[in-house]
């Protein structure tokens, strides 16, 4: 090939790189390996990890130890899907485009809003970009331009993403406190009246289902956008926010489609009402027709996007999480409406079973005993939660999440997360492990 193009060595292909910035000699890296050797090393390294399915696990905190139907990864990773790029040429990308249009429909149905994009990176960037989107749409007519109110129960790692996405564009964030029982302080929330947006989560970070949020529209008025972060699994039994006034719904899509995957790739959902369509982030698929008038699908409203609008784009998002959203669509389709309701009920049932079992342990307190919860709830242990979790770890139980890591003022709180796979024996392992720590600890 070099001969044909009239060169005598590979070096000539790189002759345009000035000598003083050339890399001399081989890279200081190990020698190449064969497929067999790489697999052996991968099995050794990944085998050293403790996977959630190998132990009773109550760690959730925003990701679900879900069950993914076997069909999902097998069909979604067909090469035609797996190895395609963004469907810029719709004529040869009808498969992924239609699948994403169907995904948009299923998300729209799930949350009760007419519009969904094709995915965000995760729940945190979905929330952050929902906030910047709401400010773009609502700031001009707001009494408090560039101001957004956020529940102070939004966990710090998600809050940090929101701060990074909002700090440079002049958005002021104000916090709304929660009451003793963990419900949003609606009186305090009324100060959001006249601001651009309010962001709350349902259930919140402590798993609490907050009925008061359904009154938010009356509290904040018509002009303030209501953004709600959801646990998608809960929506088989919980009224979707779109039905009680939410303008934008975001959340972690991961429970539908893929395992927790050490935190990624997962996908964020983003759905909204028509007001936000032209200033929303992310890709959108629309139905169209081809040259013969036949139904076809294509990316649409691309003029919002960075490759056309450049620095005036609504977001910098380019790569998203389409393949994982495809897995989500397959999982949702397999569940169907009734399967979704069953799944939600199973998670709720697991949560209640675990609460009932733990309530027999003397000295263990529930942080919010009187509020309804889904998937998660917080308990207070007599001592440091990190000690309790380490003790349970030694007994082979992943006993939850040490909330002291997020909120230093809660050093004795543990967030216990349940899921559709939580079994009776998991629950008794948890109770035994926690009881034994409480007996041993001073």
């Amino acid at each position, binding site marked *: 090939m070099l001969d*044909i193009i009239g*060169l005598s060595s590979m070096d000539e292909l*790189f002759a345009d790189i000035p000598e003083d910035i050339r*890399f001399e000699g081989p*890279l200081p*890296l190990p020698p190449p390996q064969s497929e067999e050797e*790489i*697999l052996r090393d991968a*099995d*050794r*390294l*990944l085998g050293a*990890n403790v*996977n959630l399915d190998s132990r009773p*696990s109550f*760690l959730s905190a925003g*990701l679900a*130890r879900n069950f993914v139907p076997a069909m999902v990864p097998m069909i979604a990773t067909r090469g*035609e899907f*797996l190895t395609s790029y963004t469907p*810029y*040429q719709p004529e*040869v*990308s009808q498969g992924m485009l239609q699948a994403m249009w169907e995904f948009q*429909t299923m998300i729209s149905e799930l949350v009760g809003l007419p519009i969904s994009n094709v995915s965000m990176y*995760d729940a945190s*960037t979905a929330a952050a970009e929902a906030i910047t989107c709401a400010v773009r749409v609502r700031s001009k007519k707001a009494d408090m331009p560039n101001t957004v109110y956020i529940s102070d129960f939004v966990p710090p790692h998600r809050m940090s*993403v929101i701060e*990074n996405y909002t700090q440079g564009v002049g958005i002021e964030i104000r916090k709304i406190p929660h009451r003793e029982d963990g419900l949003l302080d609606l009186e305090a929330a009324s100060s959001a009246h006249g601001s651009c947006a309010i962001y709350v989560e349902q259930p919140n970070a402590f798993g609490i*289902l907050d*009925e008061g949020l359904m009154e938010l529209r009356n509290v904040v008025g018509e002009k303030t956008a209501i953004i709600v972060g959801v646990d998608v699994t809960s*929506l088989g*039994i919980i009224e979707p926010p779109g039905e009680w006034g939410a303008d934008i719904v975001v959340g972690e899509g991961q429970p539908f489609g893929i395992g927790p*995957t050490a*935190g*990624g790739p997962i996908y964020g959902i983003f759905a909204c009402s028509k007001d936000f369509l032209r200033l929303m982030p992310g*890709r959108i698929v*629309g*139905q169209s027709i*081809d040259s013969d008038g*036949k139904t*076809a699908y294509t990316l*649409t*409203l691309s003029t919002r996007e*960075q490759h056309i609008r450049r*620095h005036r784009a609504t*977001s910098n998002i380019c*790569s998203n999480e389409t*393949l994982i959203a495809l897995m989500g669509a397959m999982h949702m*389709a397999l*569940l*169907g409406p009734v*399967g*979704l*309701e069953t799944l939600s*009920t*199973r998670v*709720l*049932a697991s949560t209640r079973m675990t609460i009932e079992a733990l309530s027999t342990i003397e000295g263990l307190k529930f942080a919010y005993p009187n509020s309804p919860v*889904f998937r998660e709830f917080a308990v207070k242990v007599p001592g440091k939660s990190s000690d309790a979790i380490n003790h349970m770890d030694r007994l082979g139980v992943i006993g939850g999440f040490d909330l002291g890591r997020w909120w230093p003022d809660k050093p004795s709180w543990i967030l216990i997360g349940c899921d559709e796979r939580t079994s009776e024996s998991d629950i008794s392992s948890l109770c035994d492990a926690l009881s034994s720590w409480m007996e041993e600890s001073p």
Partner: protein
Amino acid sequence: MTDTIFHFNGAENAGWSQPPPSMDEAIKHVPENMRRRNLPSWPRASEPELVRHYTKLSQKNFGIDTGFYPLGSCTMKHNPRLNEKIVQNPGIDRIHPLQPESQVQGLLAIYYEMQEMLAICSGMDSVTLQPVAGAQGEFTAIRCIQEYHRERGEGYRDKVIVPDSAHGTNPASASMCGYQIIEIPSGDDGRIDLEALRSAVGDDTAAMMITNPSTLGVFEPEIAKATEIVHSAGGQMYYDGANFNAILGKTDPGRMGFDAVHYNLHKTFSQPHGGGGPGSGPIGVKGHLSKFLPTPLVERRELSDVDPGGVGDGFWYHWTSPECSIGKVQQWNGNAGAVVRAWAFYRRYGRDLERMSEHAVLNANYLRFKIMNPDPKLSIHAMPVEGCPADVVKHEFTLSMSPLKEATGVTGKDVAKRLLDFGYMSPTLYFPQIVPECLMFEPTETESKEVLDKFADDFHTILTEDPEVVLSAPHTTPVGRVDEVWAARNLILRFPKGEGSS
């Protein structure tokens, strides 16, 4: 519309089975007012119906597995299946990012190795694997640069310079950090206009974002001068790593004088792009920016007696937080699955990674030569002109179809659509915008000479055939040319309510 998923309308629970809830009447624990009134109108389908539905859809989708995918700037190389096998391991698929370090030593070891490898390949001092896409890597690096200036009391620097040939994400990412964008023109040859740069920099310059080789596929030999101009004004230099496949092991952004760089693991390191994502966009920075990186990073120390286990290499791996971290850009620790795939890819090459770049560059130059030197016996309507005259290009090259448009009315878009009929993905169309009627080709290292020869022949066929055939292409695809204006006017963004199952 009759073949959408919403036309499956089977009986209740037709689809798929799951165990019943572990207690009766759990729903009584949810206040009545909060209970869902109407279930979503999702399909009611069985597994065999869905397998066929999605298999049919996949057959209407083009991937690298289907055929040659010379989409410039996207580095569509083969995705080794070993990498897919590895990420099915429950030691990655069934891992929670908040598990204690003792339970994820293997994952941390892979993170550490990837941080080190990427730093070595790019001439940077520290690497974070957290950003989940190239654009997010850009955003993260600009955030670090922003904090760097603020700490030095130079927070008044409010401008970011980008060449007009830059990827759209560059200005969009800087803009999201609150920066004003100063766009400077490129020379006709696609190179940096150093005079324009000199007059653009000043006390208000926060950074310049640039890729090298440029989006025209040409290496910028005066990059060190550009770096010097920006640095002497107090600005930082940001390297867009989208074109890293061209230079890996030959030079690196550190040597060129850059302060920060992002890598696209879904380009250079073969993470499959799955119809638009997932990606992974780690960044590397020089020492003075390290303390601003997102939290957490992975470090290691020698194993001690108190450590429970490890991975057998004598080290204990642990998370650590940079001193003045900007915090988080993704909720967890990035797209770990993409990092593990990229790790497996890099292990295949090891210290020979430069062979990858050599073959990518050879393939690009070979294809360019073959296209620009057709068989003299062919009567071609009009040969395209090169987007940038250069003796050699790097991993990609641009051609302007303007001569063809003038001669026959056939546009770059028409050629792109006609290529679909020959079983190819089209090259990147109309980017960079500085080349009129631009087609941008990137063959990658994983294509054979035979594929490139055949492609050049087919390309010449398109240049010689009846323009009417090209103007009305494609002809053999699942649908004809799609009306994008119709889609934007009608905005049918979901299956209409009440028309399907339920």
